[in-house]
C-alpha cells in the first residue's frame, strides 16, 4: 500500500531554452503543481551527465526528471538526441542496478508547454509515491552496518582468538 504521506524527492534537470522556460511559464500562468521537484538549470539536456542522475539517486532522490526541447527543436540542434540515447541506456542500466526505471523520466517540454510541466510533475510525484521511497542513503547505511564494527570490537575478537590459540 503506498504511503500517502510520503513526499517523494524529484531532482529535475531542465534545459534553459525549452523546459526551464516552460516551468517559468507555468509560474506566470499560476499553474499549481506538487512542490516535490527541485529544478537544476542547464543550458541543454545534453549537458545532463549520467553521473548527475546516479549522483542524485545516491544522495536521496526518489526520481529524476530530465526536460528538454522536443526532438527537432533543440536550441543546440541535436543535444536532446544525445540525451535520448543516453536515457535509453540509462534505463537499461538502472534496471540492472535494481532501480525501477520509472524513477527516471525524460520529457520533451517546449517553452510554450507550461501546463505540461504541471501535468508531468504531478504525474511523476504520484507515480513515485506509489513506488515508495528509493532511499539509497539509508540503504548505504544499512549495508555498511555489518562492516561497521569498531576497533574495540575488533580488538576483543583478537583477544579471543589469542586465547583460543593459547
Amino acid at each position: 500500500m503506498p504511503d500517502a504521506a510520503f513526499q517523494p524527492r524529484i531532482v529535475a534537470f531542465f534545459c534553459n531554452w525549452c523546459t526551464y522556460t516552460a516551468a517559468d511559464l507555468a509560474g506566470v500562468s499560476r499553474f499549481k503543481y506538487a512542490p516535490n521537484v527541485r529544478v537544476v538549470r542547464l543550458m541543454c539536456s545534453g549537458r545532463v551527465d549520467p553521473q548527475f542522475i546516479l549522483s542524485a539517486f545516491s544522495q536521496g532522490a526518489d526520481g529524476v526528471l530530465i526536460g528538454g526541447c522536443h526532438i527537432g527543436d533543440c536550441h543546440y540542434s541535436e543535444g536532446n538526441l544525445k540525451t535520448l540515447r543516453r536515457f535509453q541506456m540509462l534505463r537499461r542500466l538502472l534496471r540492472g542496478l535494481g532501480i525501477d526505471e520509472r524513477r527516471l523520466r525524460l520529457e520533451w517540454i517546449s517553452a510554450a508547454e507550461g501546463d505540461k510541466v504541471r501535468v508531468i510533475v504531478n504525474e511523476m510525484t504520484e507515480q513515485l509515491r506509489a513506488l515508495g521511497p528509493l532511499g539509497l542513503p539509508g540503504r548505504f547505511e544499512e549495508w555498511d552496518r555489518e562492516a561497521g564494527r569498531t576497533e574495540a570490537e575488533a580488538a576483543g575478537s583478537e583477544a579471543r582468538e589469542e586465547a583460543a590459540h593459547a
Partner: protein
Amino acid sequence: MNAGAGTEIRTGFYICHCGQNIAGVVDCPAVAEYVARLPSVVVSRDYKYMCSDPGQELIKQDIREHNLNRIVVASCSPLLHEHTFRHAVEAGGLNPFLFQMVNIREHDSWVHTDHAAATEKAKALAYAAVRRVRFHTALETKRVSVHPDVLVVGGGIAGIHASLTLANAGKKVFLVEREPSIGGHMAKFDKTFPTLDCAACILTPKMSAVGAHENITLWSYSEVVKVEGYVGNYQVTVKRKPRYVNEELCIGCQECIRACVYKEAKFPDEFNVGMGKRKPIYIPFPQAVPQVVVIDPARCLQVKSGKCKQTCVEACADRRAIDFTQREELVQIKVGNIIVTTGFKLFDAKRIPQYGYGVYPNVVTSIELERLVTSSGPTGGELLLRDGRTPQSVAFILCVGSRDYRTNRWCSRTCCMHSMKLAQLVREHTGADVTVFYLDIRAPGKGCEEFYDKSLKDGIQFVRGRVAEVTDWAVTPEEEGKLVIRAEDTLAGLVRRIPVDMIVLAVGMEPQSDAQDLRRLFNMSCGTEGWFLEKHPKLAPVSTFTDGVFIAGCCQGPKDIPDSIAQAGAAAAEAMALIDRGYIEQEPNTAYVVEEDCSGCKSCIPICPYTAITFDEAKAKACINPALCKGCGTCVAACPSGSIRQHLFEDEEIMSEIEGVLSHA
C-alpha cells in the same frame, strides 16, 4: 576585483519578497534566517523588491562593507533578472559571475499552494545555490563583432517597413520574399480601417521605395533555406527560384504578356484569390515590386514541354529578358541580424462546413469581398452576386475560425474592424442592407470605437450571437432563393433566421502552414497555437530566444497594420542597437578542454553540432574554438575522462547543486 582561489568564501544571500508574489507563499524571513546559519554565509537578508534600486544598492553596499565575494539572490527567474543582479554585483566591485540566482517565484511561490512546503523548497534551492556559488570563478564575457547587414524575411508591410527603416539608417538589407512581388496581404486591400484611406495609396510608395533603395537588395520569388552561425555572424543560404525572366533586363512593359500564345487569360490568379484570371506569363498586380514579369512553370508550355512558339521571347525582342535557361540558384550571404516577418495565412472557411463556403457560391470570405469591391479587382470594383445581380442584403459572420475551441481559440483582432470597413464599402457600393453577426465587437484601436459608431449610424445592423449555420432551405416565402442565416440573437434572446443574398465570412488569421519549418530554420520557438514566440510577452516583444533573430508583424500573432508597423520599427531598432554597438557580449558559458588531462580519445569531436571541437594532431589533444562553442555542454557530459569543462556549468557546480537540493531535509 575577484576573490582568487584560496581566499575565504564570504557569501551574501538576499531573498526577495517581490511584494506579495513571493512573500505571500514563502516565509522569506525564515529562509533568510536559515541561510544565515549556513557555512560561508556572512550576510543574509530579506527585502521587499531586490530588483529595485535600493535592493541592488543593498548588494553593492554589503559587498563593500562585508567584503563579500559571492552573491546569491533568491527571487524570480534568472531569465528575467539575472542580468540586473549581475550588473549590481559588478557595480559593487565583484566579478558578475561570482553570482548565482535562485528561482523561488516562477518555480516556487507561483506554483505551490502549501506555504510550508514552498518555504522548505525555497530553503533547499537557496542552500543548493550557496553551495554552488562557492565554486564560481571570475569570468570575462567574450565580445564578438556584429556584421552590419540585416536579413529581412517576408515582404509584407512589416518586412517592408523594417527594411526601409534600416536602409534609411544606412544599413544594408537583404529582403527575401517568397512570392514574385512584395506587398503581402495589404496589397490586396481596397481601403484600410478606421480611416478608410486607400491601401494602395499608402503602400505603393513604400513598395517602390524598397525597389529603388540603394541599401536594399530585394530578392523576390526566393526563400531562405539554411541559416548557420550565431548573433552578429549568420551565414544564410537563399534559394532563388527561376522566374525565367532576367530581373535586370525586364522593364515591366508587359508586351510579352500580350504576346503569349494563350490569347485569353485562363488560369486562376493568386492576387485575386482565384477570382480573376491570368496567363502563364504575368505580373502579379499592377503595382508589383519588382516590376518584372514572371513565368508560371506549371502553366507555361515552353517550361512544361519545351514546345512553344515562344511569342513572348519574340515580343521582348532585343531586350532578351526572357530566359528559359534559368535554373534554381542558391546564394549565400552574411548578416548580423535577421528579422522574420513571414506573416499569417487566412483560416480556411471550408473547415466549418455549416457555413457553406465552397457549397453556396454567394458565401465569400472577407478577402474575396475585399477583391470584389476594389477597382483593381476582378469585377472592376462592382460588387455583384455570382449570377450578376446586385445584392440587396449582405450579412457578415465574424469570428470564423477565431474564438472557437473547435478551430482556433484566439481572437484574430482585426476581423471586427475589417468587417465594419467592408460593411461600409458594401453599403457605399450597393446600398444593400448589411447585418453583422458578432460575438463581441472589439474596437480598441485608435479611432476604432468611433468607426464602430459610424457603422451603427450608417444603418449597419449588428446581431450578437454565434451563427449556427448558413443554409439554402426556406421556411417562409421570403426565404425562397436566399441564403438563410440561423443564429441565436443573444440580446433579443431568440433564434433568428435571416435571409440574405450574400454572406461574408470574416475568416481569422492562422500561423503560416510552414511556420514549424521556419521556426526550426531560424531556431525560434512557437507558442502552442503556432505563432512565433517572443522572448518576453511584455518586455521583449520582438526578440526571440535566439539572439539576433527578431520577429515582427502577424507571424508573432494577429495584429493590424499599425501594430505590425510599430513592431517592424521596433525590430529594426533592436537590430540597429546591435549593429551600432558593433559587438555583442556572449555569455561566458563555453566549454574548454583541459589540455594536460585530455587523452586525445576524440570522443567529443563528433558530438559538437557546431564543429567547434577539432583535433590538434600535433599535440594529440582536442581543442575547442570558443568563438564557435555555444555552450550547450553536451561534450562536457560526453568526455569520458572528465577533461572537458564548462564555464558556469562546471561539474562541481552542478554536483554541489544536486547535493544541495537533496541534503536540505
